[in-house]
């Protein structure tokens, strides 16, 4: 067997001598595809990411529709905010836990030793969490249009989905920072500790207008509040405290701060590998 192996390998080497080219576009596409497959085969990621927003929507958006708060259009409001919540979680967990785990295993270090384009794994992970976000949002919209009897013009559905999916970017950046600062075991706990209170305090579960004054005062300090407001603007249900431009600016600044934090963590990580 060894002789065959050698001959095959040698023949391949000879054939490959004329300088070949690699395609960065193909690398990014493969990276994204395998990031997606990797997580799709991981129930610990898929179930919380896809199922939680849908289950919450069924409970609070659909089942409580007839309850005491029935004067408010919950099913429509929550389509915007649970979608945003789901995308935010997909990005935080996908980037944060994914990176912390792969960093802890030495896998990222191995990939850095290859001629991989340096940003490829991050791009792959961002595309992957946007894809998961898109799937989750589609399922949520289907649920909203059927069980929730939500009626919106097609253009509104599309712009809502666009805002929600693009909202993955600032949270992917924050996940990146967590991935470089947290260990593989602590990352999920840290993300839950941040994302659940942030989602609640941003009016993602209960309309911000119904929250106590103190929560409404704190909310503008949370990037997730601005994300929720941008999503709500597409359906005209935001709290009118800021313009879309202001919301986008806050999220852009938050993205840059997260990237800076991730960069510092990356530098710290680079000097630490020891053996």
């Amino acid at each position, binding site marked *: *067997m*060894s002789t*065959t*192996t*050698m001959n*095959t*390998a*040698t023949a*391949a*080497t000879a054939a*490959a*001598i004329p*300088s*070949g*080219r*690699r*395609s960065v576009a*193909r*690398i990014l596409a*493969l*990276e994204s595809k*395998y990031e997606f*497959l*990797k*997580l799709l*085969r*991981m129930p610990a990621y898929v179930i919380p990411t896809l199922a939680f927003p849908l289950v919450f929507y069924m409970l609070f958006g659909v089942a409580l529709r007839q309850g005491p708060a029935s004067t408010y259009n919950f099913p429509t409001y929550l389509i915007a905010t649970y979608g945003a919540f789901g995308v935010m979680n997909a990005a935080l967990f996908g980037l944060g836990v994914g990176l912390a785990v*792969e960093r*802890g*295993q*030495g*896998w990222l*270090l*191995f990939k*850095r*030793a*290859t*001629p*991989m*384009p340096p940003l490829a794994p991050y791009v792959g992970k961002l595309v992957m969490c946007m894809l998961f976000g898109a799937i989750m949002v589609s399922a949520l919209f289907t649920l909203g249009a059927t069980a929730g009897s939500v009626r919106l013009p097609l253009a509104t559905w599309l712009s809502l989905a666009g805002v929600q999916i693009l909202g993955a970017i600032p949270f992917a950046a924050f996940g990146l920072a967590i991935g470089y600062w947290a260990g593989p075991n602590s990352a999920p706990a840290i993300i839950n500790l941040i994302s659940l209170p942030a989602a609640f305090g941003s009016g993602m579960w209960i309309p911000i207008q119904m929250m106590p004054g103190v929560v409404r005062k704190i909310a503008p300090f949370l990037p997730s509040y601005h994300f929720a407001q941008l999503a709500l603007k597409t359906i005209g249900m935001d709290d009118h405290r800021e313009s879309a431009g202001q919301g986008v600016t806050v999220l852009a600044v938050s993205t840059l701060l997260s990237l800076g934090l991730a960069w510092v963590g990356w530098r710290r990580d*680079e*000097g*630490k*590998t*020891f*053996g």
Partner: protein
Amino acid sequence: MTNQRQIDDDRPLAEMRGGVKKYGAVIALAGIDFAVQPGEVVALLGPNGAGKTTAVQLLLGLNRPSGGEVRLFGQDPRSTAARVRVGAMLQVSKVPETLKVSEHVNLISSYYPNPLPAAAVMAAAGLLGLENRLFGKLSGGQRQRVLFALALCGDPDLLFLDEPTVGLDVEARRAFWSVIENKASEGRSVLLTTHYLEEADALADRIVLISHGRIVAEGTPAEIKSRVAGRKIRCHTVLTLAEASALPGVRAVRREGELTELFTNDADRAVRELLLRDPSLSGLEVEGADLEEAFLALTGADTKEEVAA
């Protein structure tokens, strides 16, 4: 002719001059010079913590040296031009477990301009038939072979193998050696790190022995073996350290409390000499010196001081 690879010139493929790496107050590498020449299989041999992995990381551009110079194919090791010619098997505890073997190979291959065909990679690493298996479902030996396969994807001129058989049982280790030998026999250069003398002996043309971040010996496997593969004699003796170290065949001596340890290549002769000179000798034991102790004997500053005193 067919099994020799084309290398542009005679420059070393990988080279480190005065390589120093400090982590805060800890000195991992204290100034190392060595090179891997075309077609050569070099083993960096040393106990855990000797600085082997650090040396590999500097050569691969994964870590900045605190001093000295590192070149890979005459270039900055971080350059893509250098990296496309290198394949590395690092100490990765786990590869993402929910991807199939073929998917991992496909992705890593995409990074290289002239990758080996996937089938050739699988065959060379002994993974035929496991293409569709998820990494998480593989045995320990199979996992190591996947890491080896990933190092081969780019059809590299130089292979880095960092502790390639650590954690494998004897049988799996030997099977793995023959896989590595196969690749080396194509004229591919290999830099291997290991703390098994047997492994360095089986695979390498040249062994560079390092301990505490320094090169302590360099030579062919036969030369190195004669220096480190010795026996250790433990006893209670009235002989002074100077007398003990002057005994024929004794390489180094160490004393811990009442106990004297002698490192030797010829235990039979050393024991005869010991008994001859110290009839009151007691508590005699002879055992194989492990590599770590052999290094201590070769390098330990404490031994030298005691011997001098």
